[in-house]
């Protein structure tokens, strides 16, 4: 240990010269005496001055000095000189005083005349060691306290055997979370958890306890005055020899402001996505109007058939009935085009749910029916069998797919190429089997290699008209679903855009 090699500087505060001489003699004959230097002061004030001037490792303190007596001597020394190891010297009958001194911050005490050189040097060394250990513990506690303060954390220590909880005291904390400090047992803490979050929280605690994992949760806490706060909690269990949890320490951070900002951001992002969708619908409007003309045209035809029958004075025949049934069917079809359009532009809150990829593709191709017909493209749809449902907001993913297919159609239209193939493929992502992939592949001229890296950047566009926000928003949408949107050039020409979507909530076990 470094302390054994470095010279030990000892300051002896002792007004009795005989006692001082005795100690000096003892030190001189102790092992390693050559590395010990001893200074003696008779008065406390002189000792303090000495300690302020130069560095000492330990003070041997006689409590009875000319300028100070008893515990007051220790108190004064400690008050003026921080962090020095103190060993109190006591008389024969004063063991009780020695113990009191230790209680008040002395590292040790020794009874004058009862120590030999070996014991003395051991007491001195241990005192120094303990002092250093104490100091580093104090420093790490200071650092922890600072960190807790800066991070605005609350900590707790839950004794599972007694049910008692000790919360951290944080004077700078806001009113809501500092209430935690008043919580003294865990069941009352849990009574503050928002009723909607309680079941999940209990599950998470039980799960952590059982699987010896850290407990972690984000939940709402409702205080008796009705204020709701979002908190993030993390706890760790300690177990006894029988793997029975006996203690849990944890920290809690108030996420309310963070959540609010997050929600504002999300609302903002949803707004942008919605605007992009409205603008996309603007591009598709005339096409959709034409699309609506298909069932309307069919309805006219069927109605004319009925009219012809009536004009000819014929009795209702199977063909009349059938025509009327077809009118109903086609009217429904027209209705579904309109409702598809409405839900696409409506400003509803994004809703994630288990969604069929096949249905996503069908809806998308329905919305793009006119564009496909107009460009005389029949997309090859290649869908893996038994593809599980994905967790997605159907409208937002349709928005992405429409963007991708629109881009593909545009690319091939400009190319004027004789081969205009569009294919859509979907299956389980081979690179990440917790996700499905959907690829949109065209046979257009492809993106210039030098543009590939900027493809998803905001305001990057190679089109004459266009803001350059389409792919950027698409990527935002896909990533907000926990998926990825990537682009690559096909070896045979054209582009392949692939998006992935999780089969379940990302982060779920």
């Amino acid at each position, binding site marked *: 240990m470094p302390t054994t090699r470095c010279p030990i500087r000892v300051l002896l505060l002792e007004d009795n010269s005989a006692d001082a001489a005795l100690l000096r003699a003892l030190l001189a004959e102790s092992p390693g005496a050559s590395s010990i230097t001893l200074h003696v002061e008779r008065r406390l004030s002189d000792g303090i001055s000495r300690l302020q001037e130069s560095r000492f490792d330990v003070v041997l303190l006689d409590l009875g000095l000319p300028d100070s007596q008893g515990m007051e001597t220790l108190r004064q020394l400690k008050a003026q000189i921080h962090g020095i190891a103190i060993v109190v010297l006591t008389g024969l009958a004063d063991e009780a005083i020695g113990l009191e001194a230790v209680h008040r911050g002395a590292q040790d005490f020794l009874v004058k005349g009862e120590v030999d050189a070996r014991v003395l040097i051991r007491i001195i060394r241990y005192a120094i060691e303990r002092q250093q250990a104490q100091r580093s513990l104090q420093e790490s506690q200071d650092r922890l306290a600072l960190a807790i303060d800066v991070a605005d954390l609350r900590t707790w220590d839950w004794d599972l055997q007694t049910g008692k909880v000790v919360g951290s005291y944080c004077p700078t904390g806001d009113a809501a979370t500092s209430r935690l400090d008043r919580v003294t047992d865990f069941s009352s803490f849990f009574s503050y958890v928002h009723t909607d979050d309680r079941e999940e929280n209990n599950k998470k605690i039980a799960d952590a306890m059982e699987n010896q994992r850290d407990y972690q949760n984000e939940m709402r806490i409702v205080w008796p005055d009705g204020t709701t706060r979002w908190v993030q909690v993390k706890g760790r269990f300690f177990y006894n020899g029988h793997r029975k949890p006996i203690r849990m320490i944890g920290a809690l951070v108030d996420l309310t402001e963070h959540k609010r900002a997050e929600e504002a951001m999300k609302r903002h992002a949803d707004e942008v996505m919605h605007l992009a969708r409205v603008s996309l619908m603007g591009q598709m409007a005339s096409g959709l109007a034409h699309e609506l003309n*298909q069932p309307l*045209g*069919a309805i006219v035809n069927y109605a004319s058939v009925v009219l012809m029958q009536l004009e000819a004075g014929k009795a209702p025949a199977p063909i009349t009935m059938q025509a009327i049934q*077809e009118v109903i*069917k086609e009217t429904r079809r027209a209705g579904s085009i309109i409702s598809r359009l409405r839900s696409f532009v409506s400003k509803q809150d994004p809703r994630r749910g288990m969604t069929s990829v096949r249905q996503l593709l069908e809806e998308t191709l329905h919305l793009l029916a006119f564009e496909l017909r107009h460009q005389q493209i*029949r*997309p090859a749809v290649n869908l893996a069998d038994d593809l599980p449902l994905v967790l997605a907001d159907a409208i937002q993913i349709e928005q992405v797919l429409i963007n991708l297919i629109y881009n593909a159609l545009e690319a091939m239209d400009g190319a004027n190429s004789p081969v205009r193939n569009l294919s859509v493929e979907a299956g389980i992502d081979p690179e990440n089997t917790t996700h499905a992939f959907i690829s949109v592949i065209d046979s257009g001229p492809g993106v210039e290699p030098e543009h590939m890296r900027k493809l998803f950047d905001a305001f990057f566009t190679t089109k004459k008209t266009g803001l350059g926000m389409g792919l950027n928003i698409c990527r935002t949408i896909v990533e907000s679903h926990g998926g990825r949107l990537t682009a690559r050039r096909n070896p045979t020409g054209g582009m392949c855009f692939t998006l992935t979507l999780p089969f379940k909530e990302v982060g779920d076990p």
Partner: protein
Amino acid sequence: MNTQPTVYIVDDDPGMCASLRMVMEAAELKAQTYGSGEDFLDDWKANRLGCVVLDLRMRGIGGIEVMQRLRAQNDEMPVIIISGHVDVVTAVRGVKLGAIDILQKPFRTSELVAHVRHMLELSIEQHGRREELIDIRERMNRLTAREADLLRLVVAGLSNKQIAVEMGISIKTVANHRANLMEKTHALNAADLARMSVIAGILPDHV
């Protein structure tokens, strides 16, 4: 020969396709539907009696291309193109491909039926001409070399006397050959013979 002409409906919108078929059936016309240009072309047979009602814009092969492929196979079957919007270029391309009608959606059903009936008549007429052509060619093929030479001189408007000089035979022989020629070709007179020659392509039609 199937005598009832058929309306071939090609539209990739199933509702449109089915409703047009019913319209045709209500008008007591025979109809057949195809969901794509490809399906129609796959089923194609030469010289059928009827007309095509063709959607301009379809996924895959579009209306104009279907027409081009028909014409490339010398099928002159009349075509009615229906479309949500017809631009001038498309209209011109269509017209250049011949025997065409263009109906813009939305159209009156009765209007379509009238157009279809007209086109079916056209088809029957075409068919009649085609039959006659085959007939005439067959008759022409039965002519001897001498009779064929005589034919060219007759339709050129030469008299028997002039022909006799031209061919170096007697007027009587010319008259005999001429009688045979008229009998073999079933021509009523020299003018009828000329008409047949034009149809058969023996004579350019500006003569």
